């Protein structure tokens, strides 16, 4: 077992975990933050995307012990975040979710796009979304929501 100390959604967390425990499983099973989802466990689908030190990463292929000393933000940790509030509203208004399973990871990725690439156009948005799979929506609502937030933030 390895000792692990990190911040999750602003809260200090210390635990003793097996090295093989993924950050995703640590978040879900040990911290009971079940908004982060597992869709593939090999880094392709994006359902597990969280922020580590402000940048999106795949929690399914990151061992929890490697997150020692970092600040993790999960979907549950954006209550006071303006870009995320804008994105959530845009997702809602643009029917950007159906079953909801890909949504937390999609929101984290979408928020990263609008904060990191303020001038992105539709083609760029679609390219940046390549790492987040959705089986339900056909991406129409998701892309529209992101473009809407980009527009709103530019004006």
């Amino acid at each position, binding site marked *: 077992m390895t000792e692990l100390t990190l911040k999750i959604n602003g809260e200090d967390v210390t635990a003793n975990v097996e090295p*093989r425990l993924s950050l995703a499983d640590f978040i879900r099973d040990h911290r009971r933050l079940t908004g982060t989802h597992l869709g593939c466990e*090999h*880094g392709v689908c994006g359902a597990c995307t969280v922020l580590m030190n402000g940048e999106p990463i*795949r929690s399914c292929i990151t*061992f929890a012990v490697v997150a020692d000393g970092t600040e993790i933000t999960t979907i549950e940790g954006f209550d006071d975040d303006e870009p995320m509030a804008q994105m959530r509203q845009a997702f809602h208004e643009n029917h950007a979710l159906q079953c909801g399973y890909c949504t937390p990871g999609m929101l984290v990725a979408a928020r990263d796009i609008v904060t990191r690439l303020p001038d992105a156009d539709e083609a760029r948005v679609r390219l940046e979304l390549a*790492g*987040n799979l959705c089986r339900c929506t056909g991406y129409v609502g998701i892309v529209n929501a992101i473009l809407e937030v980009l527009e709103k933030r530019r004006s």
Partner: protein
Amino acid sequence: MKSAKFDHQRTSSLEDALAALGGADGEARIMGGGQSLGPMMNLRLAQPDLLIDISRVSGLDGVEETAGTIRIGARVTHARIEDGEVPGVTGAYMRTVASGISYRSVRNRGTIGGSVAHADPSADWPSALLALGGGVVIAGQDGERRTSFDGFQTGPFATGIGYQEILTGVELPTLGADAKWGYYKVNRKPGEFADAIGAIVIGAEPRAVCGATESAPFRVPAIEEKLAGGVTELSISDARDMISAHDPGFDDYELQIHAVALSRAVGRAFA
């Protein structure tokens, strides 16, 4: 899909990491960003006994330019390269390559050193850096050594790094303002591993690499000679002949797309 059990050792210096490698019982692996190793371990395709965590070892995440060489530490992420931390024309080439690697979430953790050491035949850096020229810096019990990219990757997932050595960085040439380069990747979806790579860099001399070959990428001297002779276009059919001469074991479709990749890489270099 949960990984098999392993021991994890945090190290805070290169000496510690080398000692851990040296003293390991069973299979030990260096953990870079974990973006290649993570999936393999979750799938139980890799079951190392010990993972050596070098995320706190200093001196591995710099980007420095000195006298015609750019040294990039092994732990520099693809995202940092995508965001333009590597200067000049070399940096512009590297940005293009980096931005096509997987997805941003993966680029935020994946490292150039990890990619070069892992030597996945379909990965970008092994092909792209072979075309750029320069080499790797490797630390071992006896100190540091350098070796050129030429011949460094010997096969799929196989390089010249010894069992008790750690790749600490890459050293790349500073391309001149008039250098030309073109990088073309054939893949089914953006961010996916390549089915074929064509990489052309014309700096001090022309270098042409055929990559994503299911084994090590290889240079194509016949193309380099043509470029040295001043051609600015390479037909697909010529590229097919030149690649075939290396007996790469491609079926007809694979030969076709590798030829397309090189032909279009040349096109991009002179666009």
